[in-house]
């Protein structure tokens, strides 16, 4: 193993009802994904403020992924529909500012989709790894 292998920091926001349960299922089924992924539990994907995502980048995250119930399956009926609009606009804006669009992602993962959760995280980490460190949205003061 390489000594100084680049380990990206990945923040994954997961809604309590579907995606967090999906992540748990991935664990129960022992489906491995990189340890770089750290999950933050939120009641619904619609709880995730764009400010949290920018905050993560500021503090040194290299990728932020947001997981929620599939559209139509939101525990709160409509939360993920609002998430979808907010993130479509936010991500489009980040891309417009020249920030790599691969660093942000929204994925719908149901409580039954442990395999999808693991596969998504594997793919996302690999993508972010290939991009390298987040330079375009970093805040040097927050770097150690």
């Amino acid at each position, binding site marked *: 193993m390489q000594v100084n292998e680049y380990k990206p920091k990945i923040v994954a926001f997961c809604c309590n009802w579907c995606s967090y349960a999906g992540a748990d299922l991935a664990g129960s089924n022992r489906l491995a994904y990189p340890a770089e992924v750290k999950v933050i539990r939120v009641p619904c994907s619609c709880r995730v403020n764009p400010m949290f995502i920018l905050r993560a980048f500021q503090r040194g995250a290299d990728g932020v992924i947001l997981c929620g119930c599939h559209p139509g399956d939101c525990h709160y009926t409509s939360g993920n529909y609002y998430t979808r*609009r907010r993130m479509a*606009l*936010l991500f*489009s*804006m980040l891309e417009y*500012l*020249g920030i790599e*669009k691969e660093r942000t992602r*929204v994925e719908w993962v149901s409580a039954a989709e442990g395999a999808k959760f693991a596969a998504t995280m594997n793919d996302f980490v690999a993508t972010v790894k290939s991009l390298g460190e987040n330079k375009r949205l970093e805040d040097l003061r927050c770097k150690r």
Partner: protein
Amino acid sequence: MQKITREALIEKAAALLSEGKVDRVLGWKSGEFSYDVTPAIFNNVEEMQKDFVYGDFSGANFSKYLVKETKKDGKVLIFLKPCDTYSFNQLLTEHRFDREKVYAVGIPCDGMIDENKIKQAVGDGILSIVSESETVKVETLYDGVKELNRADVFSERCLNCKSKKHVAYDELIGEDGLVLDSNRFDEVAKLEKMTADERFAFWQNELSRCIRCNACRDICPACTCEKCVFDNPNSGVENKAAANSFEEKMFHIIRAFHVAGRCTDCGECSRVCPQHIPLHLLNRKFIKDINTFYGDYQAGAEVGSRAPLVNYTKEDIEPSEAVNRGDE
């Protein structure tokens, strides 16, 4: 030159004041230079005759001032140019002022002039600016009188005017115009066609000039929050200095996001930016995306409309599709 004169507006105000329909007037006041116009409250005709101005530099959108003005007693008269009426409606939609305490007079607009464009054209030492229907005569300390084409010194938002139609008023002076087919998204489209690196360089260059003076926020008719998140130590984004490039970017992304779907594209942010950052290009990006993704929406076109970000359809575009549109 504006077809409607200062005198006509004073006359209208005088009539409304004497009839007791209004108690004070929100209007433009002359500043040190003729192009330097500030908002002011006039309590009577005398005050108006002394300081009130209306002309090619009366671009300021006063809708926002109604938030504070209608908290006071009495009724206020406001003159609204077509583009101001959209902000007026948007504020009403958000219950930000008391409509009962406002008398709105719609006035036509023949396009406003950007004094910076004049300064660029003639250099320093401007003594006077006289605006005619097609030309602008500028007298400077060093070069005498120079004649400029009026259309060449129009402010950006007037070059791309979206509407000559008033969407709100109690009374209208002159003829109402039409909603126009503007090319206001061309600049955004141009940026979208660039590579990510080029875009990053473009915005880095623009936003790094930001001095966090908050003028864009303070003028913005959509930014009427009781307490702005950037002033709130509990918000996690409070920071009043442009400490580094992240800070600048975050400020402008959040500012634009907070007004997304509510921004009427009045262009005040760009007008007041002392660093001449084209902030309207951020707002317009959101407007363009909203129009493309969710169907045409003009904030403020009608009172009570449901903004795109507080709405949804089951078939909305996925964020991944939204960022990958350019890839085909």
